C-alpha cells in the first residue's frame, strides 16, 4: 500500500466512514429499545445485554470459528435477557426502570465473569462488503468496506417503520403501547405482547454487541462498550420512537464521534476534548430545539411505563 495523505478531505471521509462504522451498535440497540418502548415497556438494561451479547458472540466465534454462529448465540442470550426483564416487569408494583438497571449490572457482571478466558484469543471477524473496489484510493476503499450487519440494521429499520403502520403485528404493538385498556378490549394480553417485544429488543441489542466484538473494534474486553447501550436508549427518545429516526440519529452520533480523531489527524489539534463532546452537544442542541414547553413529546407511546 502506497501511503498518500488525502488532506482535509479526510475529515468528511472520516465522518462518513465513522458514521457507518460506529453507528451499527447504536442502530441495533435503539431499534430494539424502540420496539420495547412501543409496546409500553422501558428496558434500561440494554447496556448489559449489549455487553453480554458482545461476550457471547466472541466466545462462540472463538470456539466454533464461525462469527455467524456467534451472532445467533448472542441473539438467543439477548432474547433470554429480554424475557427475564419482561417476565419480572409484568408483576404489579414492579418498576421497569429499577429492574432495567439491575439487569444491566447483572449482564455486565456476568459478561465479565464468563468472558475472562476470551480476552486474549482472537476470533474470526464478520465479513464486510467492499463497495469501494472501484476506487484507487485506499482510504476510500477502507471507508466503503461496509459490514453486512450495518446493511441488515438499515433494512430492519425500514421494515419496522413500514410494518408498524401496515401490518397486524405492528397494530397490536402500537395498541398495547398506547392503551392497555384498549388492547384488553380487543382481546389482547398486553403482558404477552410486551414479553415478546422485550425479547425482540434484547435480541437486537445483543446483535449490536456482536458487531462490537466481532467487527468494529473487533475484540472482547470489559471496556468494549463504554456506555454505548445507554446512549442508544437515549437516542430512542431523541428519535421520537421512529425506527428510521433511530437509524438516522445513530448515524449522526457515529459521525459526530468520528469528528474528534479526524480533526486531530489533519492537524486541528487544539481543544480535542471539546470535539469529543460533539455527539453529546449535538444531542442536547437538537433536543432543546425540538422540544416545547406547551406539549408533551410527540410520538411517545401512551402507556409507556416511565412511572408505574
Amino acid at each position, binding site marked *: 500500500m502506497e501511503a498518500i495523505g488525502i488532506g482535509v478531505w479526510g475529515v468528511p471521509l472520516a465522518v462518513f466512514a465513522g458514521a457507518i462504522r460506529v453507528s451499527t451498535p447504536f442502530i441495533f440497540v435503539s431499534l430494539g429499545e424502540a420496539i420495547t418502548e412501543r409496546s409500553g415497556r422501558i428496558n434500561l438494561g440494554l447496556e448489559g445485554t449489549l455487553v453480554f451479547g458482545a461476550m457471547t458472540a466472541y466466545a462462540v466465534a472463538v470456539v466454533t470459528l464461525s462469527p455467524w454462529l456467534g451472532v445467533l448465540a448472542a441473539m438467543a442470550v439477548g432474547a433470554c435477557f429480554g424475557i427475564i426483564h419482561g417476565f419480572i416487569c409484568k408483576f404489579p408494583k414492579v418498576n421497569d426502570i429499577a429492574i432495567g438497571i439491575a439487569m444491566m449490572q447483572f449482564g455486565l457482571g456476568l459478561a465479565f465473569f464468563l468472558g475472562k478466558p476470551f480476552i486474549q484469543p482472537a476470533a474470526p471477524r464478520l465479513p464486510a462488503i467492499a463497495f469501494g473496489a472501484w476506487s484507487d484510493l485506499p482510504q476510500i476503499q477502507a471507508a466503503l468496506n461496509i459490514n453486512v450487519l450495518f446493511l441488515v440494521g438499515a433494512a430492519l429499520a425500514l421494515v419496522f417503520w413500514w410494518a408498524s403502520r401496515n401490518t397486524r403485528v405492528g397494530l397490536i404493538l402500537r395498541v398495547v403501547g398506547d392503551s392497555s385498556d384498549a388492547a384488553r378490549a380487543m382481546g389482547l394480553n398486553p403482558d404477552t405482547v410486551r414479553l415478546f417485544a422485550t425479547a425482540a429488543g434484547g435480541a437486537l441489542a445483543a446483535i449490536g454487541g456482536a458487531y462490537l466484538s466481532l467487527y468494529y473494534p473487533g475484540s472482547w474486553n470489559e*471496556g468494549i462498550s463504554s456506555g454505548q447501550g445507554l446512549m442508544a436508549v437515549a437516542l430512542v427518545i431523541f428519535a421520537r420512537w421512529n425506527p428510521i429516526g433511530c437509524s438516522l440519529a445513530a448515524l449522526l452520533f457515529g459521525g459526530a464521534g468520528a469528528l474528534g480523531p479526524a480533526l486531530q489527524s489533519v492537524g486541528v*489539534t487544539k481543544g480535542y476534548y471539546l470535539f469529543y463532546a460533539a455527539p453529546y452537544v449535538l444531542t442536547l442542541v437538537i433536543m432543546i430545539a425540538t422540544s416545547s414547553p406547551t406539549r408533551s413529546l410527540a410520538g411517545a407511546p401512551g402507556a409507556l411505563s416511565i412511572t408505574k
Partner: protein
Amino acid sequence: MTKLLHASPAISRRVFLQSSAAGAAVASLAPGLLLSPAAAQSALTVGFIYVGPKDDYGYNQAHAEGAAAIKALPGVTVVEEENVPETVDVQKTMESMINLDAAALLFPTSFGYFDPHMLEMAKKYPDLEFRHCGGLWQEGKHPGNTGSYFGYIGQGQYLNGIAAGYATKGKKIGFVAAKPIPQVLQNINSFLLGARSVDPTITCQVIFTGEWSLAVKEAEATNALIDQGADVVTCHVDSPKVVVETAAGRGTFICGYHANQSPLAPEKYLTGAEWAWGNVYTDFVKKARAGEKLGNFVRGGLKEGFVKMSPLGPAVSEEARRKFEATLAEMMGGGFSVFKGPIKDNKGNIVVSEGQSFPEDAIELESMAYLVEGVVGSTA
C-alpha cells in the same frame, strides 16, 4: 457507570472486624501481618492489584507476567485481583489481601492507586511494605514503607522509532496516545526522534483519545492516522490490542507497547517496547525475604532489565536491524541520551539547548510538557 454504582459505603473489613466482637479473629491473624525478618524468610505473601484484566495484551498483562515470574520462587505466595477501580475499592482490596491472605508486600500497579489509597493503607499498616508503579514517591513527603518503581521505556520507543523510520515509505508515522502527561509525551517524542535518526524529514502525527481504555475511539484514531498517510503506527494506551489489530487490518506496520503483541499481527509487527517487571519483582521479593531494606525510588531501563524489546519482526530490513542493534548496544552500555540538544518543540521554542543532553534518568524528562518539532499534535 459501574464505577459509580461500586461506590458503596466504605466500611472496610478491618474496621468491621475491630469493632465487632470478633476481635479475637484479628489477634489470631496478627502474626502474619508483621514483617519480621524471621517470618519473612519462612514465607511471604505478595499482593498484586490491577486496574484492568491481566490478559489485556497491555499494561496489566505486563505486570501479571511479572507476578507470574515470582510465583515460581519457593516460599512465595502471590494473590492477585483484577479490574479494581482507582477508588476506595482498591483500599478494600488491600485490606482484604492484608487481613485475609496475610499479604506483607503489596504492589498496587495502577497510577491512580497511589494517592490517597495506597498512602492511607501504608499509614494504617506501618509494618507492611507498599510499592507503586509510577513516579510519585518523594523523600520526606511519603511514608518510608512506601515507594515507587518505574522503567525508562522512552528508550524502547526510540528503538521503535528506528524500526519505524526504516519501514515508513511516506515518511509519516502515527501515534495513538491516551493523555498528554509527561510519560506519554516522552514516548511520543522518543518515537519521532528515533525515526528522525534514520531520516530527519519524517513527521509523526499524534491523536489523543483522552482516556486510557476506549476501544472504539482507539480504532477510530488508528483509522484516521492511516487515512492521513501514516504507514507505521504505535500507541500508548492501556491495551494496544485494538490499535494493533485495526492497523494490521489496514495493512499498516506496527510497533508494540507494554507487552509483546506480535501474535496479533505476526507479519506487520516490527518490534515493541515491553516492560520486564519480572526482574523488578523478583528483586523486591528477594530483598524482602532476606530482611533487607527495599528501595523507595527504584528506576531502571534497558540496561537494568526493567524494559526489553520484542524480537524484530519479519518485515524489518537488514539495514534497520543493524542500526537497531547498534543503538541497543549503545543503550545497554549506559549513558545514552535520546534528548540531545538542540531540540525545538513543535511551536518553535528551544526546549533542549545546544550542547545540553538528558540521559534517561534526567529529572527534567519527568516533567516533559512539550511535543518536539516534527510531531503534529497539541498537548491541550
